[in-house]
């Protein structure tokens, strides 16, 4: 017993080191996958307030870019409104009328970016709306130009978003011109570029084609822009295209985002689980 005590006191530095090292690694591997680890990330109230203060300086220098983005978005929305009005007049699709609850199932909440990274292997964004504004983990986040990510955890007034620039996050996508379905994922190095996989090489893919979110998507409404085809090649296994996309969202100047609340999500999921044969993604 005495020897044991002596051993511990001689090796106490190493033992302390080992304990703290294991503790950190345990934090790293469990909390990074654990959605509600509020205390240890930037949704922590004090951390978030500190970031908000330092962010307010950066905001001024970005105003010009933000303005341009908002103006472009306005013009795009105007175009869309007029197009929809036109469609409603000729009622082109026979007898199909979306249920009003389904048509209006997406609700948008505007939030301001408090903190974001683009250069790590797993990037996160902190925004200034939380559970008090109806946000919950799993909701999609978009910017005025395209897809941003998905909410990982919420505190009362802040949320952390998994950005699309995250090594384990992929989005179901479709090429707008020919409706080919695939999935989009970040490769881990260039913050302006993502990769699209699972598109058969026997389909034609043109440069500058727009890639949007597909209809098989719980998080995002269909037809939100993800990016534009920048490079097309063939994968080494010869069956799929190797497509590189230019991201539509400019993460370097991202200041305001929209959080998408799909009000019918739970209903849809419950129904699909009950019928059993639809895979939940």
């Amino acid at each position, binding site marked *: 017993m005495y020897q044991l005590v002596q051993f511990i006191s001689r090796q106490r530095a190493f033992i302390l080191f080992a304990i703290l090292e294991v503790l950190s690694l*345990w934090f790293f591997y469990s909390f990074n996958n654990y959605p509600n680890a509020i205390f240890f990330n930037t949704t922590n109230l004090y951390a978030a307030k500190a970031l908000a203060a330092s962010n307010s300086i950066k905001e001024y220098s970005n105003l010009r870019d933000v303005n341009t983005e908002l103006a472009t978005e306005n013009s795009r929305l105007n175009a869309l409104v007029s197009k929809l009005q036109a469609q409603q007049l000729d009622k082109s699709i026979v007898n199909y009328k979306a249920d009003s609850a389904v048509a209006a199932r997406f609700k948008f909440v505007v939030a301001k970016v408090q903190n974001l990274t683009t250069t790590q292997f797993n990037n996160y964004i902190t925004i200034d709306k939380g559970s008090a504004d109806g946000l919950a983990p799993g909701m999609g986040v978009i910017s005025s130009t395209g897809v941003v990510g998905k909410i990982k955890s919420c505190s009362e007034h802040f949320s952390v978003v998994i950005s699309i620039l995250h090594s384990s996050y992929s989005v179901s996508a479709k090429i707008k011109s020919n409706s080919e379905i695939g999935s989009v994922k970040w490769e881990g190095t260039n913050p302006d570029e993502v990769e699209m996989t699972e598109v058969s090489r026997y389909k034609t893919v043109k440069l500058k084609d727009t890639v949007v979110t597909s209809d098989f998507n719980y998080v995002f409404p269909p037809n939100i822009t993800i990016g534009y085809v920048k490079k097309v090649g063939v994968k080494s296994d010869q069956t799929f295209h190797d497509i590189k996309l230019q991201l539509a969202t400019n993460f370097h100047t991202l200041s305001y985002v929209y959080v998408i609340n799909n009000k019918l999500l739970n209903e849809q999921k419950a129904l699909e689980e009950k019928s059993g044969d639809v895979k939940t993604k």
Partner: protein
Amino acid sequence: MTQKNLISQVLVFGFYLLLQIFFVRQLVLFNYAFCFVYIASITLLPFETNRITLILLGFLSGLTVDVFYNTIGANAAAMTLIAYLRPSIISLLTPQRGYDERQTLSLNSMGLTWFITYTATLTVIHHFVLFLLEASDWGLFLPVLAKVICSTIFTTVVIVIIQFFRKE
């Protein structure tokens, strides 16, 4: 250690952490070179600091930085490791004539070569652990290596530059 020394050590420790969290966090060159200047909060503690204190402070500063980077545990693991290794590195780097009683751990006192070797060694260990943990994928080994090399140079240069502005 006198009380005045202790207070100035605490201030220096806090200074590097705040510097990291509020200013250097945004500082990235060419997407590859990151600056983790807060390493200096551990590497610049006085020679006579004992291992237990080093490890505890290292863990604490790593964890604080982790909260702001959303990488909980990664910086803490890297900092705990370099805090534990610091005494061994210092004795490895002993100059031929041994350490002088009056020498302090600073650029002026130790000379440029010693200071850069010492800082770069600890920095490269820290960055290697941090980036490898963060990538968690051997497929990304080359980008990790590139990040480690670029960031080590960047961090070391910044720490040395700050030393030039230090009052003795």
